[in-house]
Structures are given as C-alpha cells and as structure tokens.
C-alpha cells in the first residue's frame, strides 16, 4: 500500500508503524486516524466525512475495478464495443424517421446541422449520463459479495461503475466525429468545452447514482426510480429536439424550470461545443450547476451514512 499517512510501506517490517504526521484530523480525512496509523472503528454519527484520503489510498483498486467492468462487458462478444453504438444509433434513426414522417422534414435541430447529427450528439451526452446512472445505481447490489467480505471505501463501487462508462463514451465520440466529417461539420476552438460538459454528465450520473445506490441497496424500490428517471428524463432533456425549438411553446417560468435540468445544459453544451450555430449557455447555467453540486453533496452524505447499513441488509 502507499504510505500516505505514515503507515508503513512494507508490512514485513514488523516493528510496526513509522512516525506519523502530526496535526488535527480534517473531516475529509475519513477514519479519524491517530498519529501512528491507529484506525478507530465506531458507529457513524453526525457529519460523516467523505474519506478522500482513504479513497486516494485505494486508487489502484478503483482502477482495477473499472478495468474489470470494461473488460467483462465485452468478453465473449464478437463485436465488442460496437454494441455501445447500437442503442444510440438506432434511437437516433427512429427519431429521424419519426420526424421525417410526421414533421415533413422540419425536424428540430441546430440551424445548419442535419437532424441526425444534432440528435446523435445529444444522444452521446445522454447515454453517457444514463448508463453511468444505471450502473452506479446497481453498483452496491452488484458489489455485495465484495462488500461483505472485505473492507475498502465503498465509494469505489459507484465511482468505478461511472468511470467504466467513459470507454463507451470514447467509442461514441469516434462515431460522432465520423458523422461530422461525413456531413462536413467542422468544430471550432469551442470543442475544448466538450470534456468539461462530459465531466458534468459523469458528475451528475454519480451524484444521482449515489442516492439511488445507497437507498436502492436497502429499499429495492429505488431500483425502479432509476428506470423511470432514465426513460422519462430523456424526453425532459433536449436530446431528440433542441431547447430553442420548444422555447416559444413554454411560458417563462417553465423555460426556467426546464433549463434547471442539468442534463439540458449538458446536451446543449455538447452542441455548443461542436456546432458553430448552436445557442450559447443561458442564464440558468449557474443554477443548474449549483443543483448538481447540491445533489452530489447530498448523495455523498446519504451514501456515507448508509454504507454501513448496507452490509447488514444486502
């Protein structure tokens, strides 16, 4: 193990523990450790810490679990990561067909950008979020055989679940790039925003995933919530259409509420980063970010409060 806190590096040195760093323990430090690497095990009470240091110490486990998720997903498949594309491509195709038939080609897309490209771009962002959320929500239940046998920071389970989706996302991006080349759409310097918006989507899926993972492990009802969120959420998010295409139908307050949906910001952000004609982020950017942060903070808190209970009931 990496000795970040004065814990001895080689356990072979049976003399015990090296001299510790002194100073008060910070609430981010996780388990309150006495100077010389003594761990205190007691009932959680009050404000529980996030345990960032503990998480950092287990970063290699996070990496290996993420790697495992990715590898296992494509083992014994012929096409491997190609399957990642089937769902978003098919869904995009269906939307394109529906709008072509019913709207006579007046499909809601970014000006100057083909509908299929505009929608697939939205789909890339949405799938990144939705798959992350689905996997994070199930992470504690899927990892129960580990949780009941060995200690590690439980946060690693939803984290690795979300991170393993990044590989899928990379594949999607390649196809998105191909589509843009096909349609002759050239991104500007604004493409630099794309990673930030992707990080936002991942962060949001983790934030909600923490809530659902912790609550869902104890009360299985929350497993259903995830399904509803993913299915309904896509329609409350400008994936198959654009925000500006519905702006004139909604009253002012509803527009505000709509824009508070962080995924609406992310999807439009993706388009803003890739397509020159897309709308720049609006005034609700800040509140949507704040909402994400709030959800994330609450999710962390709920997760840390409940993780001890989970082992007793899974």
């Amino acid at each position: 193990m990496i000795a970040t806190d004065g814990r001895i590096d080689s356990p072979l040195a049976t003399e015990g523990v090296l001299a510790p760093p002194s100073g008060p323990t910070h609430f981010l430090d996780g388990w309150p450790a006495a100077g010389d690497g003594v761990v205190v095990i007691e009932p959680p009470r009050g404000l529980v810490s996030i345990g960032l240091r503990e998480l950092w110490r287990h970063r290699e486990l996070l990496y290996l679990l993420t790697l495992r998720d990715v590898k296992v997903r494509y083992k014994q498949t012929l096409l491997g990561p190609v399957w990642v594309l089937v769902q978003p491509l098919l869904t995009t195709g269906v939307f394109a067909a529906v709008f072509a038939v019913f709207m006579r080609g007046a499909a809601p897309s970014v000006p100057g950008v083909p509908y299929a490209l505009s929608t697939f771009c939205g789909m890339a962002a949405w799938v990144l979020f939705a798959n992350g959320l689905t996997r994070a929500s199930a992470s504690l239940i899927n990892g129960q055989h580990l949780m009941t046998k060995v200690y590690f920071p439980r946060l690693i389970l939803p984290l690795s679940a979300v991170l393993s989706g990044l590989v899928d996302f990379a594949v999607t991006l390649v196809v998105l790039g191909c589509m843009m080349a096909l349609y002759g759409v050239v991104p500007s310097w604004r493409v630099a925003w794309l990673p930030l918006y992707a990080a936002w989507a991942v962060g949001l899926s983790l934030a909600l995933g923490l809530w659902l993972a912790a609550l869902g492990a104890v009360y299985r009802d929350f497993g259903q919530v995830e399904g509803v969120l993913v299915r309904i959420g896509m329609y409350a998010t400008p994936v198959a259409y654009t925000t500006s295409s519905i702006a004139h139908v909604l009253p002012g307050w509803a527009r505000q509420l709509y824009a508070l949906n962080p995924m609406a910001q992310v999807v439009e952000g993706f388009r803003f980063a890739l397509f020159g004609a897309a709308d720049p982020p609006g005034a609700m950017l800040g509140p949507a970010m704040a909402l994400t942060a709030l959800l994330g903070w609450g999710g962390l808190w709920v997760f840390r409060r409940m993780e001890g209970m989970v082992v007793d009931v899974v």
Partner: protein
Amino acid sequence: MSGAAVRNTHVDPPHGGPAGGEAWSAKGAAAWLPAGVAIRTEGLGKRYRLGELRDRWQRRTGQYLWALRGVSFEMRQGETLALIGRNGAGKSTLLKILARIAVPTEGRALVRGRVASLLEVGTGFHPELTGRENIFLNGAILGMSRAEIRRKFDAIVAFSGVGPFLDTPVKRYSSGMHVRLGFAVAAHLEPEILVVDEVLAVGDASFQKKCLGTMDAAARHGRTILFVSHNLHAVRSLCRRALLLENGRVVQDGPVHEVVDFYLRTVDGVPGDAAEAQWPADQAPGDEATRLLAVRVRNAQGAVSFHQYLDEPITLEMEFSVHRAGMSVNTSFHVYNAQDVCLFATADFHRPGWEDRPLPPGRYRAACQIPAHFLNEGLHRVSAIVVQERKYFPARRDKVVSFVVHDRGELRQGYAGVWIGAVRPVLPWVVEPIGGVP
C-alpha cells in the same frame, strides 16, 4: 513500537483519554493505543433488526437482536487469538467489525496497522477474467498495490500451481484450481493484522494443511492473527489465547487450552462433568430387566477424567443392573469423534467365558480399555448400551459421556499442522538403504 510513534501520540492517560472521559468518544479525538497493542475493543456491540425491513414503516419499534454486546478485549502485536463458540455466538460479527466490513452499533475498536481480512478464498474473482487478471484484481481487493502484486506475481503463480492456465478464464477452472489460486494470492499478503474466518473449511486435507502452515508461518513472523474456526485442533496449534463467545458476549478469555476445554465440556449441552454420567436407581435408563446405572471415562491413573492423552490408555466403564434371571446380557460401547463419525463399536462378548451364558440378577461393572496410540486428538463421545438376548437394548444412552484426547506433541517432531485421520496408531516402520544414487 518505535520511540518516534510514542512521542508523536503524546502522553495520554491509558484509559481516560483526553481529560474528561466524556469527550473521549468525540470524533477526531486522538485515538490512543498503548505501544505494542494491536487491537483494543471497548464495549463493542452490534444490533440487528429482525424481520422484514418494511416493518419499519409500519411500526417504529422493531424486534432487535444483539449479535454482539459489551465485548472488550485487547490484543498485543504478534499475538494469535482464536474466537470460538457455537454458530450464532457472534464470532463472525466481531470479525467483520474489526475488518471494517460491518459497522458497530455501540462501543468502539481501535486497530493499529494494516488489516487483511480473509473471510473467503478468492474474494472478487470474476469468472470471465483470466487467472492473471484475477490475481491482480483479487490482490488489489485484499489491499495489495499493483507494484507489490507484480513483485510477487511469479511466486503466487508458482504457489498456486495453475501456471499453464494463467490466461484461461477462471470460469473454466476446476473448483480446486479456483481455491488454490485464491489462496495463493492471500498467502502473499503481508498485513500486520490478519483476520481469518473458517477459510479452512474449504478444500481437502492437504489444502487445509497448507493453509494452516501459512498462517503458522505468519504467526512466527510476528503477525497479529485473529482466527475463527470450528477446527479446534487448528485453533489449538495456531493460537496461544482464545476468546469464547456465547450469545454475543465474551464468557471466557484465556490460554487456548483452558478455553477450548471449557468449550468442549459445555458444548451441545453436555453437563459440566462430561466424563461421567450416573443415574439414581429409579431414573436409570432401561426397563424391568436391565438398567444402565453409570458410564465413566477413566485415565491411565484410574481417575475419572475428561482429559486423556494420546500416549496413554483410556478406560471406558459402565455399571448396570440385571433384574431378570436366565437372560443373556452383553454390553457395548460406540465411540464417535468430533465429526460424528463412529470410529468403532465394541462389545464384551469377546471376553473369555462369555459364551452367551445368562447373567444372574445383580449389579455389574463392565470396562474396556482403548490402548494408547489408538485414537486421534480431539473430542470423542461414547454411547453405552446394555443388550438383552443380543437384540433388545432398552438400557441405552447415546453419546452420554465425552472426553478429549490431547497430544503432548512428543511424537510430532515439531510438525504443527492437523494430523489427519480418525485414528492415530503408532506403527512399526522400516526405512532401509537399497542402493546408491543412480
């Protein structure tokens, strides 16, 4: 313990903590463990809710079960401690709390050093991944860094013996290979504190021996080991000290032999003096023809004793009465070991002069001697039977007395593992030269 560590943990009073006592449990208060102590628990308790979780919505007051209550003990660095007790006594719960898998409901524990919990062999093995991938994954789950695993990789592979199948998915492994690979990774852990639960229950005898040998080596290297097992032999040979848990509480804490003996005497409701059972005449098992009056186990000195030794003969004895004349009577003992295997049945009709002659009414004592170097170590139980006419046995009591056979270790030549086998005879051996090296 290095002087530096002591200097850095300032000088708190050993038990009071920062002056005031009350503030002691406050989060972030510096935990103080005296130098050389690996684990200390203070009034540790774990409560489980019984019944369906949904009940919580219906009524606030649920049914609770304290799986562990008021458990306080201290373990020094390098000590080997066994947790024994019946199923459901709280052993695994305590282990899980100390391994930080479960959270206590009350009290607290202080643990110094890196803890590795071995509650299962091959935790986190994924069937789709190859042996190689699983070594890294399992190692990381058990707390090894990748550099550490890489360094020990060849040793792990050699130890497991699955070398040729390293790049085969684990799902195609035999269960034996699966267990061997899992154990190979675990055996290369180098924690300061090792927490082990019933790992030895899996695998065959040679695997169990390997397990024990590895833990023994770890103990000799100064690791602190907390060990839960129903294999009392393993407990005896590996640990110096034992805690006996009963209904979530510590009822005995002391040298391993004393605690194990106490446990053996009280297990399964066997009354205190397990080496002797006797009944008043009116309650004696039997019918109007024969009655069983007493059953005893005697040692080489002729004393009734629960404790017997491998290298001494053991005498089984019963007293019975015959009330009807003209009836053929014989007696029999059945001896069972701790695994409930009947080792043998013996009857007195081999004695000279038996010849199926009726036994006149009266009281009798029948005894037989089990020779030294016959039974193996461990707990044995004895059934006593008085047989009428070689087919009826109303005067019978099953597993009515018990005794435990101890190994003084003289014939082991230092070997500390499980000496397998239902019996342990000392046989004449010959080893002779048959030629030079080819």
